[in-house]
């Protein structure tokens, strides 16, 4: 009896202590969810891992604020979020190419932003090699935000509440481009999309199975598409020509490498959330998935650098196209698209 009471007393004490501890934490950050970089269990190890850019709620919040701040552009009309819209999985819905300041039309289709920590190089031509330095081009390009880093830094230094936010995020109120870029990397790096129906099925989560059409589509996909759109990220990050034109108007990857073999090649894009990221291709020429699939069926041109696996195209009948389309829609991650943590607030 005596022993039992001691055990109960200890248990009670532990529970009380646990409660006290959690309460203390709540007091410090009231009702704020700790921002974490979560790696889905069916994903490989990421390339960017926040080791030299400690992820904090304050850093993430600052990056998000900068991401959505149109005042940073030359005419105060364009933010990162203008061309990277959450409802389009951070791509640009209905825009063939990005639409910058002064109504300037950019050269290429704005890519979606998610799972960037797994990406080795950025932009359609892979010119930028580090997640942190990726926003530089958007800041400075005459057809995007048309500003320069000096102006951006000085705006942030002189605009409330930025100095305070930088202090919270980095421990000191002085602002430089490194902190700007690291905070943006905290925001965009955390954008992980790995909760689609496909993911849940792959992780054998209870209650999730492909329909027979989806499964037929998945099998076709593995047979005909996955050599480039490799699972689980749905890209192998290589640069290839898929024969859009006999002679590409855009030099693509060769702009970076200078190599003739790279002329007209572009990074294989991910197919995750493809339902929401139209229009498709580097120049946004296809408005819907039917057009994109029909290209592989009947539209592949024999361009000099056409990828070997696409010689003669990929024969697909209407049933097969529908099956593949159903499978592609299982790559939609609505939890990601609708996560208010990532929304402009």
């Amino acid at each position, binding site marked *: 009896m005596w022993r039992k009471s001691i055990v109960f007393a200890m248990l009670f004490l532990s529970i009380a202590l646990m409660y006290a501890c959690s309460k203390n934490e709540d007091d410090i950050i009231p009702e704020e969810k700790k921002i974490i970089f979560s790696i889905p269990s069916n994903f490989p190890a990421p390339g960017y891992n926040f080791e*030299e850019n400690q992820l904090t709620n304050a850093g993430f919040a600052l990056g998000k604020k900068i991401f959505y701040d149109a005042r940073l552009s030359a005419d105060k009309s364009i933010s990162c979020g203008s061309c990277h819209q959450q409802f389009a999985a951070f791509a640009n819905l209905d825009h063939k190419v990005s639409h910058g300041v002064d109504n300037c039309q950019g050269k290429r289709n704005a890519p979606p932003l998610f799972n960037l920590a797994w990406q080795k190089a950025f932009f359609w031509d892979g010119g*930028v090699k580090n997640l*942190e330095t990726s926003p530089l*081009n958007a800041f400075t390009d005459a057809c995007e935000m048309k500003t320069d880093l000096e102006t951006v830094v000085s705006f942030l230094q002189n605009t409330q509440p930025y100095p305070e936010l930088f202090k919270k995020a980095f421990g000191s109120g002085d602002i430089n481009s*490194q902190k700007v*870029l690291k905070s943006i990397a905290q925001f965009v790096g955390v954008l992980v999309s790995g909760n689609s129906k496909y993911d849940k099925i792959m992780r054998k989560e209870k209650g999730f199975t492909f329909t027979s059409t989806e499964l037929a589509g998945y099998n076709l996909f593995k047979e005909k598409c996955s050599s480039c759109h490799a699972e689980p990220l749905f890209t192998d990050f290589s640069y290839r020509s898929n024969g859009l034109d006999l002679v590409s108007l855009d030099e693509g990857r060769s702009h*970076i490498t200078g190599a003739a073999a790279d002329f007209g090649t572009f990074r294989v894009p991910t197919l995750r959330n493809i339902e929401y990221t139209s229009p498709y291709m580097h120049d946004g020429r296809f408005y819907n998935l039917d057009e994109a699939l029909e290209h592989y069926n009947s539209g592949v041109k024999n361009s000099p650098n056409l990828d070997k696996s696409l010689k003669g195209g990929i024969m697909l009948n209407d049933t097969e196209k529908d099956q593949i389309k159903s499978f592609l829609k299982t790559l939609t991650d609505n939890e990601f698209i609708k996560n208010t943590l990532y929304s402009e607030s």
Partner: protein
Amino acid sequence: MLVSAKTLEILHCIQNDSNYLITYSSFQKKMKLHQYLLALLCPIMLLSSCKKSGDEITANTKSSFTIEFEHQVNGAALALNITNYKNAKGEDFKINIFKYYVSNIKLSKADGTTYLIPESYFLIDESKSPSKLVTISDVPTGDYTRIEYTIGVDYARNFAGAQTGVLDPIYGMFWTWNSGYIFVKLEGTSPQSTAANNAITFHIGGVIDPNNTLKTFSAEINAANPLRIRTDAKPNMHFIVNAASLFTGVSDVSFATLNYTMGGANSVIVANNYAKGLFRLDHIHN
């Protein structure tokens, strides 16, 4: 005289050795086994000390020195925007911008030991006078007979995350569309240039083959007057930097045919040129 920790260690050993010799002659009978072992140990330690000294220098005392970069064009002082110069092809040109990175400075002693100055990145800009006088601190004291550095920024930093200090992209020496630093930037005009406004634009960088433009410069220092790093002195190394070296040395550049490069094969031509003649160690004030 100040000596490095390693030298002290060696001297200590030699002393012990001679002590042992004295011991041996006077008190031979009293020698114990451990003394023999000690005697054996000393030469071994000496040997290993010698081996080790092949890599890095460490010292208890450190001091600083300065490097001055004097900008010239074929022997004449560089003056931005106004003065007319001639390239090796006899074409006139003016310079509006001249700046470049120097990094990973490494000093060597006559015995082959080296000291790499950590985090040594410098952006030298003709339009910013203070940038032409670089101070290097915390260098182990000693006599150095060789200096070596990278013209530009090492491979890794070209692809690293957001940088600060002189590597901050705010200085316009980082390509936003094709990651990497501009190692040497020279802009100006030439009547021979076919570009708009007769501009000449040379942005040299890139670290990936076949268009790798990373170059290393090294200079032997006269052993009679080495770079003497001392706690009570601040020596100065004086380099002459010839901006015209971009256009001659391996292949003479004509502005009629090459007046614009931002990385790529033409940048390699220019980098091969300046690797030969951009820097010359003129003298050292100890």
